[in-house]
């Protein structure tokens, strides 16, 4: 089969991811983890991993299962691994969280849950990496957006290996001095590999293709885009080298880390320029909501990269505010904005694909209500900006109030996704033409037709 078909498990990944986003925001509203607890406290670890693995990584994995075939114009390899990968990731996250809760002393669960979670997550992400790597390998030579995904997968494996090593030490399973050094000096490297290398590099790469697709811009490979890839790949290489210096207790970690951050700044500036060019070269006059709602995310990306390069901000409490802006302004903002389009499009294709051309069917935009959703995107980004400032100035109560507003906005947007899946916004007259397939909310289609 040539071309791209619907990925069977993508909606299940998205559904799980959305629930985790709500859970993570709910914890913050309830005052769990930072800023009430220390930035390195087990409670904060719970919060961070619910968001980084549960929300962002599941979202990214689900999106890549659908869009890597679009990037390389060939079907997914090893696609049957997608379902067990999701099960392993969810189980692994559950064990990891249980382990962190045990570490916090709130319950007397065994600490062994931590490395057990690490192992499950390693397997789950390993499966995802196998699917992506096998698909990319079969599609060489790779178009540029797919090169970003390849770099992202390497960073994912680095983040997972580091994280798994941490669980061995924190649970007391291993007293290996090399691993102990990693825990003492490698936490920010783990975070940068995960949030930057895996989630951001991959998101940026896929965005090159999706932005020109949605805006009808020419898909030319710009030298600046290629430079972005080289620079971020080099930055990830430096972070990996920094991990080695920590492991071997040789000096140089800080220099490597600062150099990687500076490279990221250069990449961020080039990337912003590329996004601007793609937007200017568009043939679609009016950009749709998913594009307009991505602009604040690009701004948040650039802002957080600039601030993280200011030493006094990075080393103090300011790092929490930057991370918040990065996770919710950039990654989550972009994720919600693109989900808004992707869910509607995939649902449209699943429901009406079999009857296209055989009679009138609704348009993709009939599945959503852009005007209503636009208001909630504005509220969402407003709340993120206010919550970031609240963290920066240390107003815990105001922070929680803003996260509550943010949670309400995400809840309403998720209701929109559910309405798209249920075809609720489609006028009843055209909703169910003969032969159409009613999509399940998040389970895969019952059987492939014909």
């Amino acid at each position: 089969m040539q071309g791209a078909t619907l990925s069977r498990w993508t909606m299940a990944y998205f559904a799980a991811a959305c629930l985790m986003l709500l859970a993570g925001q709910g914890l913050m509203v309830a005052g769990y983890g930072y800023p009430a607890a220390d930035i390195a406290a087990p409670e904060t670890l719970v919060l961070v991993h619910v968001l980084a693995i549960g929300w962002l990584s599941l979202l990214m994995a689900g999106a890549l299962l659908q869009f890597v075939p679009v990037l390389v114009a060939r079907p997914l390899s090893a696609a049957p691994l997608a379902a067990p990968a999701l099960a392993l990731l969810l189980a692994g996250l559950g064990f990891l969280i249980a382990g962190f809760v045990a570490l916090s002393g709130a319950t007397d669960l065994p600490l062994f849950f931590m490395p057990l979670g690490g192992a499950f997550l390693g397997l789950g992400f390993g499966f995802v990496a196998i699917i992506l790597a096998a698909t990319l390998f079969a599609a060489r030579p790779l178009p540029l957006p797919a090169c970003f995904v390849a770099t992202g997968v390497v960073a994912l494996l680095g983040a997972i290996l580091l994280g798994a090593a941490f669980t061995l030490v924190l649970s007391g399973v291993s007293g290996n001095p090399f691993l102990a050094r990693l825990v003492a000096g490698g936490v920010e490297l783990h975070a940068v590999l995960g949030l930057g290398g895996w989630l951001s590099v991959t998101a940026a790469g896929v965005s090159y293709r999706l932005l020109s697709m949605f805006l009808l811009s020419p898909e030319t490979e710009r030298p600046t885009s290629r430079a972005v890839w080289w620079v971020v790949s080099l930055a990830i290489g430096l972070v990996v080298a920094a991990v080695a210096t920590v492991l071997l207790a040789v000096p140089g970690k800080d220099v490597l880390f600062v150099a990687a951050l500076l490279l990221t700044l250069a990449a961020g500036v080039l990337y912003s320029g590329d996004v601007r060019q793609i937007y200017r070269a568009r043939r679609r006059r009016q950009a749709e909501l998913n594009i307009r709602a991505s602009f604040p995310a690009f701004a948040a990306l650039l802002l957080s990269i600039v601030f993280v390069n200011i030493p006094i901000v990075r080393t103090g409490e300011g790092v929490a505010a930057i991370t918040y802006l990065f996770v919710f302004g950039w990654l989550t903002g972009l994720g919600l904005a693109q989900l808004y389009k992707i869910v509607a499009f995939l649902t449209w294709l699943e429901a009406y694909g079999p009857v296209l051309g055989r009679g009138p069917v609704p348009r993709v935009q009939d599945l959503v209500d852009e005007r209503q959703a636009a208001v909630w995107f504005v509220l969402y980004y407003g709340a993120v900006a206010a919550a970031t400032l609240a963290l920066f100035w240390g107003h815990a109560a105001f922070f929680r109030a803003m996260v509550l507003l943010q949670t309400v906005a995400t809840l309403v947007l998720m209701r929109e996704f559910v309405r798209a899946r249920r075809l609720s916004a489609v006028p009843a007259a055209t909703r169910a033409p003969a032969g159409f397939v009613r999509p399940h909310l998040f389970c895969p289609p019952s059987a492939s037709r014909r």
Partner: protein
Amino acid sequence: MPDVSTQTPPRELDVRPILKSGGEPFQAIMAAVQALEPGQGLRLLATFHPVPLLQFLANRGFDHVSREIGDGDWEVLFTPQGAESPVEISYDADSPEAWPDPGLHLDLTDLDPPEPMVRILAAAERLGPGEVLFALLSREPLFLFPELVARGLQWVGNFDEAGATYRILVRAGRAKG
């Protein structure tokens, strides 16, 4: 020359009437080049040897063969350099070079996705057994391909030499029995 590029008969364009009436044939030539099917060549008839055009189309991926055909007129055969834009063929398509000329031409380059997909499927529904349609799109219709195959439609397609327009031929299966 290898591949299917020489197997689709070239489109013919005679610009001698335009030239003789003092007109400028460039627009007509570019329109003809844009409308070429995947791998198709162009046979151009002119009142002189169009040297600037040869270079122009070479830059867009066309080889050429010229010959004088009498009365000072020239015939130039432009053929696409196949290596630049590989032709993709659905696995169930049997010998596309033997397909009949398309009875329907669709220019869908200005439509927002997924409208081109809807239009092609709608047009394909109306094809008689063995009939062929030709369509131009602004990007590769990756989600269309499986849908065509699921409906028993064969296809062959590739990007034009500039990589800006995707060209696809879709053929309804033969009548059974």
